Every structure is written in C-alpha cells, then in structure tokens.
C-alpha cells in the first residue's frame, strides 16, 4: 500500500505512555478497592479479582481471535478495576464477572477496541449489570446510606432545611462514634470561632463501612487518587474542575428543594461524597476515549454531564444520577466530534 518513504522522526517522546497512564489509573482504583476491602473482609478485593480475571481472559481471547496483543496497554485492567469501583461491595461475583466480560467484549471491542468505543467500557458494564439484574443490584445496596435516604424521601420524609443528613437520621441512619468525635473536634477548633457548626455524619463518608458502591466506600483514598491523577497530568484538570464546580453550584442552589428545603441551602458535601460524584468527575468525565476533540468542547460536555447528573440525582430520584449524566453525554460525543471536525479541522474553502 505504501510506496512512499519518509524517515521516521522525531525520535523521542516526552509524555508518559498510554500504558503508564492506564497503570496509574489502575493503581488509584486499587487504592480505593483496598480501602473498601478493609471494612468488608476483603469482599471488595475478591470482586476486583473476579472482574480482573474475567476482563483479562476476555481480552486475551479477543486478542487471539484478532491476532493482535493489546493486553500490555493496560486498558483491560483499568476497565475491570473502574468497573469494580462502580459495583456494590456485596453483589454476587458472577454478576461482576459477566459485567466485566460485557464491558470488554461488547462495549470495548465490538466497536474496534481502545479509543474507538463511544461509551466508557466500565460504565457500559455497569449499565449492563443494572439493566440485567436490577433486583440483585438493588438488593446488594440494601442498607446503604443512599438507598436509606431515597427510600425515606420516597416515604415522604422531608426536612425543613432540606438536609440529607437530617433525613438520614430520621430514617434511622447511625453515625459512628469516630465521626461524632471528629465532628466535635472540628466544631470546637475550626467552626465555633466563626459561629458555624458542622453536622455529624460527614466523616463517616470518607471511610464508609456499610454496603455501597465500592467507589463510595473508599472516598478518602479516591480523594488522594484524584490528586495523583492530576499531578501526573493524566487528565485535563479543568474538566473535573468544571464538572465539580457546576455540580456543587447546582446542589447548593437547588439541592435542598426536593428534600423540603429552600433555594440556596443544598448540602454540597453530601452531594460530593457519595453517588459516585468524585469518580465521575475525575475518571469517567475525563476518559479521553469518550471525550471531545477540543478542550473547549470537553469543558462544555463536562458542564452538561454535571447538569444531567444533578437533575437525575436530585429531581429524578436516582442515587447514581452522576453516572447516568455521563451516559447521556457519551451518546452525544460522536455528533460533537463530527461537528468539531467540520467546524475546526476542515478547509473552509471546501465547506
């Protein structure tokens, strides 16, 4: 095909390779899974192992069929680990295995492999699991803070301040003694001098021990992971910044209204620390494979994902609205990319 010869140059590369990036994201995911595993007798680690084995075996099988070895790019491992983060820690491992296989075989490879899929494979696997085994998925989240909260709201429990923590307390949610202690210390040292008070319950979210999505059970290490990812320039930092800022602004402005509160009283911390918000902002929204071509359009899409995520969670009653928000924007990406090519990268004289 190619009878034209040009010397290959340049000869150096100055950025981390794709595989190095994948391994770093995988490392962050493992940190979160370990934090979750500490509180559930390593059940989270078992799920991760199952997802990992399923994904790797599927990737190898497809590699064998296609005659190309792509396992070393690390994307299959990363997909399996991010998929694990999206699973409840008490879900049946067989479901995890099937979801992981679906993510690799259908969402990733049916569209041509790494970089050509229109949907984030891990998110595709999550969608497959929630749609195929809705009862098992919901059962696995029985007793989770988010489920208790939405069940309470569904029963008509509201709070005049619109505080989710207050509603949770009414619903019987127990706050740990460590949380009470830390909240007391913070209030005594930081907040009382400025006539403010931090309600009890937030510290538990940093190291949540009840049933929940694994990403929500390892928030402390996920926060550290977001710093690592940003420091190593794995993502474009403005995308999570825009996502988080807009999401929190919307929560602050309108987040109390659905729970009996008034305009401008929404609980930003509660919105940030569960429902997969951090994972969405720093990993799913910044996935380059399902991103736009230009940074500007990327920021716009991040903003849209934040708006959709907020609407689905606060006005649609879906605890994991943030994930649905990304799903919606993922569907828009092919159209956005086509538009970008036409508007930004085509010779205007030919338009």
């Amino acid at each position: 095909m190619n009878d034209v010869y040009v010397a290959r140059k340049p000869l150096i590369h100055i950025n981390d390779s794709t595989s190095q990036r994948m391994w770093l994201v995988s490392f962050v995911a493992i940190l979160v899974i370990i934090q979750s595993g500490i509180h559930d007798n390593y059940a989270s680690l078992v799920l991760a192992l199952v997802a990992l084995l399923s994904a790797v075996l599927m990737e190898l099988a497809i590699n064998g069929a296609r005659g190309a070895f792509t396992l070393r790019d690390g994307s299959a491992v990363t997909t399996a680990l991010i998929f694990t983060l999206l699973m409840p820690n008490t879900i049946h491992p067989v479901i995890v295995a099937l979801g992981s296989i679906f993510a690799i075989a259908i969402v990733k490879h049916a569209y041509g492999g790494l970089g050509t899929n229109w949907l984030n494979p891990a998110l595709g696997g999550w969608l497959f699991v929630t749609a195929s085994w809705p009862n098992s998925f919901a059962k696995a989240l029985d007793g989770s803070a988010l489920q208790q909260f939405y069940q309470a709201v569904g029963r008509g429990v509201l709070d005049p301040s619109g505080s989710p923590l207050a509603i949770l307390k009414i619903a019987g949610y127990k706050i740990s003694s460590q949380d009470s202690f830390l909240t007391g210390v913070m209030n005594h040292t930081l907040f009382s001098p400025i006539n403010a008070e931090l309600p009890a319950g937030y510290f538990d979210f940093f190291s949540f021990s009840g049933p929940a999505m694994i990403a929500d059970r390892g928030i402390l290490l996920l926060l550290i992971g977001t710093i690592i990812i940003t420091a190593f320039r794995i993502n474009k930092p403005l995308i999570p910044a825009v996502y988080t800022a807009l999401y929190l602004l919307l929560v602050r402005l309108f987040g109390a209204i659905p729970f009996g509160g008034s305009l401008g009283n929404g609980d930003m911390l509660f919105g940030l620390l569960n429902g997969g918000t951090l994972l969405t902002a720093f990993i799913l929204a910044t996935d380059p494979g399902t991103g736009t071509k230009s940074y500007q359009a990327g920021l716009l899409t991040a903003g849209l994902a934040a708006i959709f995520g907020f609407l689905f969670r606060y006005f649609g009653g879906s605890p994991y609205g943030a994930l649905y928000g990304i799903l919606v924007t993922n569907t828009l990406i092919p159209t956005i990319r086509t538009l970008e090519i036409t508007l930004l990268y085509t010779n205007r004289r030919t338009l």
Partner: protein
Amino acid sequence: MKIYRFPRGGLELEDPTVPPADASRIAFLPTLAVIPLTQHPGTEALPLVETGTAVQEGMLIGRGHGSGSANIHASIPGQVVKILSWKLADGRTTKGVLIRLEGSFDKLGKKTDHYNWQGLSSFDLQRIISEKGIVEMEEPGRPFVEIIREASNQSKTVSLVVRMIYDDPWLVADYVLAQERLDEILIGSAIAAKAASATHIIFAISDEEMELAERIKIRSAALGVQVRIVITGSRYPQRNRRELETVLQRYQKNESLDLGAFCICGPATLAAVFDAVVQNKPILERYVAVGGGSIKFPKVLRVRIGTRIGDVISQCGGFLVQPKKICTGSPLKGMVVQDLDEPVTKTTIAIVALTEEQIGGEVIHDCTNCGECRAVCPVGLDPEYLYKLALLGRDSDALLHKAISCHGCGCCEVVCPSRLPLSSNIRVSIKRGSR
C-alpha cells in the same frame, strides 16, 4: 522590548543531556574521512576523483548538478582509497569518497586569506557561494544560492533573516558558534545580504538570549553592519520557517516596514559564507554538539566534514550506557544513524546517543483520543484524524482537512502517549495525495 511569538501550540523543550554551551573543542583530525557526495536534498554530486587520486584540503571532489545539488570538497588532504556507496536514513543511496589522511594542509595552520568582498557584485558573490558548496548548514541542506534566488524571485524587496532562535536544546552547537564567531557571522550576513540584494538584515533572537542580542547590537555597530533585532519566543517550533514568518509579518506590521520576501538562514551558514568569500575556504568543518544520555562527556566539537561518527563519539569518552538509538541532528528532526562509520556532513548539527528512557518507549498502542496532539499542533490541525485517514489511504480526505499545512515539526508525535507515528504518516499521506 516586544517579544513576538506564534499564536498556538508548540512545546517547551528541555534536555539535561545536551553538552554545556560554554566553548567548543577542536576534534582530532580523522585519519580516514568519508565525504558523501549527497549532503543536500538534490541529486548526488558528480564525482571528480577516483580511487588513487591525490586530493588537497579544500579541493573540489564532487560537482553539484541540478536543482538542490551542491559542490563537495575534500576536508582533509590525502589519497582517495575507495569510492563507497551506502543508503542514507532518508532512503536515498549515495556515493562517498573515502580519503586517507596524507600530505600537508593548505588551510589548517596557515595564514588565513582575507579577500576584499565589498567590491564584488551580487552575481560574483553568488558564484563564490555556489562554487564553495555553501548550503544551509542544517537538514535538508539546501544550497544557499537557491535560497537567495528563491527570495529574490518572490519579491523585489528581500530581507535576510538570521535565525538565532534556540527553541530546541540541541541547537547548542549553533549557539556556541554564535558566541565564538559573532564577527564573522555579522560580516557573513552583510555578504549574504549583498548577494541577495537584501534591504534589511534581521537577526531573530529568542527571548532567553537577550545577552547575545546585546552583543550583536554592539558588534554590528562596531563593524558597520546595519541590523535589526527581533526578539521572538523560545517555544518549539519558533525556528521553523512558518512560525518565524508569522512573527516577522507581525513585526513588519508593528514597525510599518516592507520586509518583502524572507531569505532565511542560520548563523552557521553565514559563518560558512564568510569563510567562502573572505577566506576562500569551502566548508571543511562544522560545530557539532555531541551528547545524549549515553555519552560519557558531552561536548561541542569542531569536527572535520567526513569524520566518522564513531570517532567523534570516542572523543567524547565513548558510551556511558548502551544507546538505544543514535541520531544526527536534533532528536526531533534528525535522522537515525545506521552505522557508526557514517560521516559527519555539512548538515550534522548534533550527534545524539539516546537511551531507552529518552526515547520514551517505542511500543505503539491504540489511539485513545487524548487530544494532546491537537493541543500542541502549531498549525491547528487534528493530527489524530489525519493519521487515521492516512492509515485508511484516504489521502484526498486528509488534504481536505488541511493536511497540506503540516510542516512536519513533529510536536504531535513527541507528545503522543500511544507513540503513534503521527507526523511521519501525515507526511506520507501528503506525498501520496499530491501525486
């Protein structure tokens, strides 16, 4: 002072393995010199010697013929041992003259000539520059006379532009040359300006070299050479013709000047013009930066043309660690050395022995659409899309999406985390599409 920069993309490049920019050292004379008859983009020079011929230092041994071809001279005195043939990194085959060092030098160690050039006409100067085989002293090594003629044909007004923009750390040899031979460069610029009938001499200097700019001001005033100094950014590829012209056009607009066509050259070329016209000397040696992570003692050397790369490296202490690749020229735009017996040519600005770590891995992964190539492209192209079109052979589509604007700076390829040969494939696509 206003700093002129190109508007988008580009890279800030740093490399701790470049040799120190303090001074040059004279390299040993080669006992065997391999003088390639192709040191320019055009056809191979016609050999004027055969095995057994005795040659003098500076003697014409290859006559350039046709567009892009230049004369070739012997860099050392001696006897032609053999006429060799080998394949260059760009795919062309070339002959070379292997000379064994013998006899006495006509130039080295002798009193230098000092010819008066002021009385010579533009035509005479061009003839001398052409006879002495002066080419732009970096890849691809276009004959300087052709550069002059091209500018003169474009416009009645011509400006000679001397690019002293160090956007790539591997231009350190050029920098040392500028420090050590500034007067010759300034006189060379006056000669070149006269040859090109240029109305302006512009020194484009990167903003990190303000001291050099100050020296140029002082020395040009002392030598009576009227120059204009334009301070540019130092982001790669500011030195590229397109980015340089972009800033020069902004400069002429700001200063309400008519600079006309640009005759662009580097300081090494002007030093060679000085040697040719004032000292009656062809290109016998050049400044070469020898470094990279594998080299024991990186240095800037003054190396005779035809010296084998292996000999040059051994003068820098040899290898510290096994190099993964050796290239001539900057790692961004240079060519891979296939054999350590390959010679230093007129366009060898550097010899870089790269470690595996410097190369950054060569395993190609699938494109993840990360967009880093788009972010650094100074032309505003979508290298990822053009690369995919090139792979599919859709060359006319690639041209529709502005592929022709790509000037091969390589920024996209340098930053690609998937190590895709973006720039290389786009250049293939352009070549195929323009057939």
